[in-house]
């Protein structure tokens, strides 16, 4: 007989491993359930953001249930079936069980994925309404610039050869294009509350990203492309805009603000900027 009786110490090892896994599950559930400040995101300021949160919650319910059941199942099996001199139960598996859990995961995972499609479609499939406020967002190493078309409602042409941050033309607005004369270029993004805004996101050099946590939106600024992104903010306030795409040595300093203001404040902002041009 070559079966060795190696059960000394196995109860302690089994108990410790099971305990660690149980503590892991309890701690994880606790942090998710108790909304500790370092584990939560701020409330969304768009209806789409709320929908994304809803889908996130649904995913958390599914993933959380699977997490708890499989980790506790593992902890249970580790302790219960430790070597204490018993004989292992011989089985090669069960086709019925394989079929059941394959079908169950297909339904669960694909169902979840298809449900999440709605929030995605609202952000990305449908374009902004024609009367949305247009703002161009340009990333370059390591600042954001926001351009408004001014009173004429038209953006001036851009010419990369005329870019010169030192002479006040960081975007290279073509001096020969009359539509560009009244364009407003500012380092922070100001938008009126409850109006749809259509951002036209672009980059001058490398890839950057426009991310506002409260919008629940990230969008790369991809060189060579102008990528539209629309949202309607419903809460007045100031929110941080950050770059989340590694863009070079100053990446972590690339930062700006989104100001969501009342209609009156927005008009005042435009007037003040127009006067300054």
């Amino acid at each position, binding site marked *: 007989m070559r079966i060795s009786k190696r059960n000394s110490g196995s109860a302690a*090892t089994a108990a410790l491993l099971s305990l660690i896994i149980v503590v892991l599950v309890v701690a994880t559930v606790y942090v998710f359930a108790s909304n500790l400040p370092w*584990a939560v995101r701020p409330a969304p300021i768009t209806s789409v953001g709320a929908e994304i949160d809803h889908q996130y919650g649904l995913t958390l319910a599914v993933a959380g249930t699977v997490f708890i059941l499989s980790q506790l199942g593992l902890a249970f099996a580790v302790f219960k079936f430790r070597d204490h001199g018993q004989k292992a139960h011989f089985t090669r598996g069960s086709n019925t069980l394989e079929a059941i859990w394959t079908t169950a995961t297909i339904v669960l995972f694909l169902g979840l994925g298809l449900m*999440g*499609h709605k*929030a995605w479609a609202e952000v990305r499939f449908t374009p902004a309404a024609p009367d949305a406020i247009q703002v161009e967002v340009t990333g370059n190493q390591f600042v954001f610039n926001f351009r408004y078309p001014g009173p004429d409602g038209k953006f001036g042409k851009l010419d990369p050869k005329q870019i010169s*941050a030192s002479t006040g033309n960081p975007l290279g607005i073509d001096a020969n294009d009359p539509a560009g004369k009244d364009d407003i270029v500012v380092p922070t993004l100001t938008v009126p509350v409850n109006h749809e805004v259509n951002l036209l996101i672009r980059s001058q050099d490398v890839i950057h990203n426009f991310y506002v946590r409260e919008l629940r939106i990230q969008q790369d600024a991809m*060189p060579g492309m102008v990528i539209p992104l629309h949202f309607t903010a419903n809460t007045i306030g100031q929110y941080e805009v950050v770059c989340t795409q590694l863009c070079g*040595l100053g990446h*972590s300093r690339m930062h700006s603000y989104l100001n969501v203001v009342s209609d009156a404040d927005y008009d005042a902002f435009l007037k003040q900027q127009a006067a300054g041009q």
Partner: protein
Amino acid sequence: MSSHAHTGGSTVHAPMAEPSGFIRKYIFSVDHKVIGIQYFLLALTAVVIGIVLSLLMRFHLVWPNATLPFVSGGQMSQEQYLALVTMHGTIMVFFVLTTAPQGGFGNYFLPIQIGAPDMAFPRLNMLSFWVTFLAFVCIIAAFVVPGGAPISGWTGYTPLSGLGEISGPGEGWGQTLWIVSISLFCLASLLGALNFIATTIDLRAPGMSLMRMPLTVWGWFVTAILGLLAFGVLLAGGILLLLDRSAGTSFFIPAGLVVNDQLQPHSGGSPLLWQHLFWFFGHPEVYIAILPGMGVASHVLSTFARKPVYGYRAMAYAICAIGFLGFMVWGHHMFVSGMSPYSGFAFSVLTMSIGVPSAIKTFNWLGTLWGGKIQFKTPMLFALGFVSLFVSGGLSGLFLAQPAVDNMLHATYYVVAHFHLVMGVAAIFGIFAATYFWFPKMFGRMMNEPLGKIHFWFTFVGAYCIFMPMHFIGIAGGIRRYADASAVGFLAHLQPVHQFMTIAAFITGAAQLFFLFNFFYSLKFGPKASKNPWNATTLEWDTDSPPPMDNFGGHYPSVYRGPYEFSVPGAGDDFIPQWLEPSQVARAK
């Protein structure tokens, strides 16, 4: 090498002559076992460097203003931090997670587990290793060239990586060396993949049908197929990127870019093209890192639970399904890139479906344990840890696979936590399980059990302490690849969590010394290992520890049954090896 033409039974051959010179035996060896150990030692060197780089990063995140003795200027700069980010990722993904499980253990054990005397192409095998070694020399050289190591991340996104020095420090020589290194690595891995596939198809012992192969062999075999199809694409991408940098082409760079007020002389390229090429390789690469670990986990769980792998066929099919689907999900890395949102939807559905074979594997691992007689040897502890970590790390993928939810989590520490748990730590646990399990066979001595267990406890708890909190700060908006959190208001309150993770990282990193000591001490002083110290069933346990040059000492094994015949009712022993003729199987008294 000798041909493997025999008809069955144990044919006795003259033992293969062993080369006598040191160089032919240990340096330029064509023996797959020596090459396996060379890959393993390369990965061991790389992982030590990779861990040190990660500890430096963790240190900087918490104490950015500390004066460091070996940093020029005393304090680590933003670009030095980003160089660490790039080099840590590159070294770990390529030279550890690809090199150790496949190049190391695959090379050593695939031929033996299928009963072959060597790889199909031993010289090609030697070439693969030495090209990989050259690639490693290139990547390490990037630290010392003018400008230092590149700062564009392990993904090397263009245009940052394509424009040269003007786009940032390290983007000159350092980035060029990075591309050369990755391209060489791709070439070596292509050769290795060919060899693994040919060996598995052609050199199996009589009776070793596909459905009798150990799941480790399934893992290596499917990984090789992934490697064959994926590395070629990155190789092409690497060559094009090199041309963009040095020959004035514009595959990945569009017109009109202005860097530092200078108009760049490029036009007509697309940065998205690089991302597609990179991730067409990059996502299968995740499975290249984890599939061998899945094989090892199944193998070790079955051996130490003294039970057959639950649902063996389902497990083999799941490995194939993961390999197949793994090629159709790369776009989930690009949900926010500006790629068509309809593609985003398609990639999302495909990505959710890859969760299905992953879940099947998890259920079957639990099924293997259920009703078992679990022996908690160190390899078993690491295999159990693998299952726990794979579940934790895999489930966060359900969030990231949905483009809408990914919109808020993309590029945060949530992603870092996800892939570290599932492809980093879980894969490393697979490597540790394999090391503790096969060390006796490879080196003829046992590793120390108490030290192994201490190593496990620290590493298991430590890995969770580092990476579970990381999910939460990601949800709170903590952004990855930031050298400095001070410019962003909402990052300040995450700093105490960073502190906790950094302390956990240093303790976990220090605990790896238990492993290193155990490894090198046992090489010399470990108790001698018998042929089959774990009472295991597959062919590597049918030969001496360590095996002779031709693996089975002049006889070739035949295979009579599946790989996991444990606790078979009516049998005298609780394991029936694959090589035992039916008439020799002991009956229960």
